[in-house]
């Protein structure tokens, strides 16, 4: 692992895929949901959210759809694709392996 931002980058993709796996949401809602579910621990800046979303869209893991909002504005909703579901499974597995490994390391008793 190199820089912390790399970790964050990969992790952000995983979080976004997971959130969208639950239900289709628009960008702002995703940002709110991120804060809620992580108990305000994960501060994802609104700035880095959209480039990440667009990247996932370009990869074909999520797809976007324009819908009308409650007050009749055009809102872009993101939803997980079949490809994205596969990617989510792979990334989850990866994350599990990684976090298990790290937990294992940090639980080592000092000699």
């Amino acid at each position, binding site marked *: 692992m190199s820089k912390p931002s790399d970790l964050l980058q990969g992790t952000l993709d995983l979080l976004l895929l997971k959130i969208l796996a639950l239900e289709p949401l628009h960008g702002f809602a995703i940002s709110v949901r991120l804060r809620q579910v992580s108990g305000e621990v994960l501060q994802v800046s609104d700035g880095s959210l959209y480039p990440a979303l667009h990247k996932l*869209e370009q*990869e074909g893991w999520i797809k976007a759809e324009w819908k009308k909002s409650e007050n009749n504005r055009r809102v872009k909703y993101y939803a997980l694709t079949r490809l994205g579901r596969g990617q989510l499974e792979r990334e989850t597995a990866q994350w599990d392996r990684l976090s298990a490994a790290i937990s294992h390391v940090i639980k080592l008793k000092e000699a």
Partner: protein
Amino acid sequence: MRMQHWLYKLPLRIRSLFRAGSADQDLNDEMQYHMDRLVQEHMAKGLPEESARLAAVRAMDGLEQNKEKCRDTRSVSVPLNLARDIRYAVRGLRKSPGFCIVAVLTLALGIGANTAMFSVVNAILLRPLPFPEPSRLVHLWEAPPDNPAKRNVVNPWNFLIWREHTHSFAAMAAVSTGELNLTGEGNPVALPSASVSADYFSVLGIPALMGRTFEPGDDTPGHDDKAVLSYGLWQQRFGGDPQIIGKSLSIDGRPVIVIGVMPQSFVVPGSSARIWTPMAITRDPGWGKGRYATVIARLKPGVTLAQAQQDMAAVARIEAALRPDYDRNWGALCFPMLQDVTGDLRLPLLVLLGAVGFLLLITCANVANLVLMRGAGRLREIALREALGASRRRIVQQLLTEGIVLALSGMAAGLLLTVLAVPSMVAMIPPSLALPRSESISVDGRVLLFALVISALTAILFGLAPSLRASRVRLHHVLRQSGQQIGATGNRRLRNAFVVMELALAILLCMGAGLLLRSFQRLISVDPGFQTANTVTMRIFTSPAKYRKASQRAEYVENILSEVRAVPGVEAAGSVHFLPLRGQVSRSCFGPPTREEPNPTRSPDAQFLIVSEGYFAAMQTPVIAGRDFDSRDAMGKASVMMVNQAFVRTFLPGQNPLGQSFSVCWNVPNPAQIIGVVADTRQKALDDAPQPTIYLPNSQVAMYMASLVVRAKGDPRQITDSAISAIHRVDPEQPVAAVETLDSVLDSSVSRPRFEMILLIIFAGLALTLSAIGVYGVISYSVQQRSQEIGIRLALGAQGSSLVKLVLKEALSLALFGLLAGAICLLFLTRVLSSLLFEVRPYDPLTLLGASMVLLTTAALAAFVPAFRATRVDPMLALRSE
């Protein structure tokens, strides 16, 4: 998996490519919605709307940067950006037409001049010979004992030995060029011809268009009454007669059957032959003497040049063992045909290409400076774009795109220039220059590719430096700075470096042109040893069938000469077998006056010329001692010869030459006595010092070939026709060729150095003009930048003249640096240069001084306008402008 992935991605990519506008609208909407919701959220927490908005913007940390990042995720952005950059570049360039016109014109000049020069180099040096598998074609030469690297023409017997004892060649042929008289139908004409051994056409690998070429057996005595015609001769002389094969022609008074016609495309570089006849070399002793044939050969497949050269070295030892008296210490050489055909043109052409390359560098520096100065004015714009999220790479990319658009426009204009210039340039090449292969100079694919490559290099050279410079801009630095000083300091050094480079290259070209000019002046002021004014010359080749005996030929030429001398207006007339200044020389060995033939490998040799009575009078070459040839020296009388002063200096120093006798190999039977000494003349060329020369009288050793020299009392052109009629009164079938005034012979002999000089002067002039533009640009920009300072100086009472001095000093210091750099470069180029110079050293002080003065004056003139403008600065305006 991968495939599926792409199937999904493709429509998205296509969408962003073709509907970039609507995709951007979507992006805006999406971001705006997010912002609005953020503001709402903040306001719900009790913040006033103003602060809520600000907080939202801050949360997005850079709305525009983020949008750009989102756009970057669409990975088609490279073509997308390119298209946008090109649009933007064109729009930007259109907005500054002045900059554009100067830049494109400069580029067009640089690229055009280079492409035109390259098209010449391409046609002459690079394009393969027009024969199948041209790389296997070679020339074979003998090498004289005193210079084992010199290409010497070949003795026919040695050719036979080579053909028998070498193993590297698939085929080998001997060629001897000359002239043939074609009589019969129509006017008698002298045709440039080549007599060739049977394999000539199979070495070159070109079959006949009609009929056949020579076959083994055609070059044996008794079977050699055959001829192959060139396409041009067939068309012009015989009207393309389809029944020409099998016809009998009268050539040099004997019947010859036409067996073939060559295709139109059959052009042998360096040969002007229009008719080919077999060269029936035999073991007859007549072929064993004299070196005059050229030998061509085709390497066997897979044989390398080095192997062939070893083979030739080995055969030289065989021939020396077989004929020690004739061939001892002679070598045998093998060179690629292309290299030999272009031979001595290679260096001058490469020098000119180098010179024009300098011109291109000057162009680059000039345009780079233009771009830099324009860039300085655009620093704010660039800073702004960076602030709005453009990455450094994107900015460099965009500036480079602008460079490429400029370079491509320059290339288009340059190519247009080339296409227009090349035909007139080819037309400008004097025919006397005899450039081999110049007929094929044209703009072909390779020339186009060359233009494209140099344009791309140019774009990178003039685009990259300023782009990198611009991309290193410190953001806040620029935005905070006041407009005037932006980029003034950092760029200045770079700009000045460019101008110094331009000036250095320009001074190099000026010095080169100056040196060639001086060398040319020296060359044409050389005294050839004869007077060219009022003299006309024409060549006759005596028919061997009609005038087989030497006495017949001697009488024939004497009859012609006396008939010509009787023409009104003719002052004197004489003949020589090789006219001076046409590059033709003949040599003969000589020895003590014994009845035995001097041994050629152990005797000294000298140039020899066979001249008639009256030749020296017609040439106005003074007889220094003794007497001229006259009627006493007839056939059968005591053998006589004359020599020149160089001969006396070299072989008879401190002795009285008159009365001494020598056996001359050319004319062995009787030793000849020296009856007179003439002044030195230049024979081969003006730059070839007078050689020790033996003159033999045509009345005793008549040649077939004779050039008449006819001196008129006035304009020689008025007596030309009557002189030709006089010849035809003696023999109506005698063709007369190469009718020319001696002035024009002299003129043609220096046409190559003149051509080189003119081209280099043109290049130097262009270089000076371009660097003057460069100096002008940099100095006026610097005056503009310093207008505030100048205003203050004026306000404090500075005189206009001191300001002019200030500005001129800046320009002259640049010029001096350029001069210095140029002089250092000259050190490295002297060796190349000196090979092109005649009696002028590359460090000729007068030339160097002259060129330096020209450069300094140009720089001063270029700086004068901006200097004058400086004195017109309104102090108040300058002080208030910030």
